[in-house]
């Protein structure tokens, strides 16, 4: 028997639990990349990750400017945490990140969700986190297919060539 036979991924289940710009985009890029490669894809948004699919929040995701040692000034100098604490700095940095993404043809969050579902990907929200944040399905973007418990999400993750990715 050939043990080196390639077994490509069939399905990825991505869990997005954080609401910062970079964490949400990590999930979205992976999800869209999966459907583009013909890999079945389910994305589950939970806790602060719900911001990415909440109509009110999804257009103004921020990247944290405090406590991020990899944060640099344009030009490469270190970015002091205290500077990041000044009101408006986080919004400015986030706007800059967004404009740089736009320049690379990376879509906005709502358009990205549409691209993923256009390719057959499915978007879900976490029931427990929805209850915690007092959100209803009506607060969520139209591309969200359903609100699930974690048990239901695991049911979607069946198959021996399936991976669960947590970001």
């Amino acid at each position, binding site marked *: 028997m050939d043990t080196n036979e390639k077994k490509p991924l069939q399905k990825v289940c991505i869990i997005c639990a954080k609401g910062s710009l970079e964490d949400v985009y990590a999930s979205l*890029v992976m999800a*869209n*990349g999966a*459907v*583009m*490669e*013909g890999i079945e894809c389910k994305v589950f948004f939970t806790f602060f990750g719900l911001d990415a699919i909440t109509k009110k929040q999804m257009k103004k995701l921020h990247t944290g400017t405090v406590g991020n040692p990899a944060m640099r000034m344009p030009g490469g100098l270190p970015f002091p945490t205290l500077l990041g604490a000044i009101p408006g700095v986080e919004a400015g940095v986030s706007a800059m990140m967004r404009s740089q993404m736009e320049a*690379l*043809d*990376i*879509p906005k969050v709502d*358009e990205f969700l*549409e*691209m993923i579902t*256009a*390719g*057959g990907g499915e978007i879900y929200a976490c029931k427990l986190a929805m209850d915690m944040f007092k959100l209803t399905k009506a607060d969520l973007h139209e591309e969200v297919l359903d609100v699930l418990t974690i048990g239901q999400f695991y049911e979607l993750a069946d198959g021996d060539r399936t991976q669960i990715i947590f970001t």
Partner: protein
Amino acid sequence: MTQITIAGQSVDLTDEGYLTDASQWNKEVAVELAKTEGFELGDDHFKVLDFLRDAHAKGETLTIRKVGKSGIVDIKGLYKLFPGGPLKFSSKFAGIPKPTSCV
């Protein structure tokens, strides 16, 4: 790299089956390449291939978003035309290199 003969023309392919020289492409080559992946190309497919070849000739980096905004086909339609690899398969049949973008 391998060399095959399609419709009387010899064509150079990478190991993954992409043309190494976009100028060796013609419609018959596209049809034959598509057959190897189980696709039957129609007019709608060729509209996309023409767009990709034009954009590639201009040196643009291609994304499915760009194709979706081209006015030829939306992203959903692109997935319908090339299921399982909207940019991968269309690039292959258009005779341009394997896409390198992540979106």
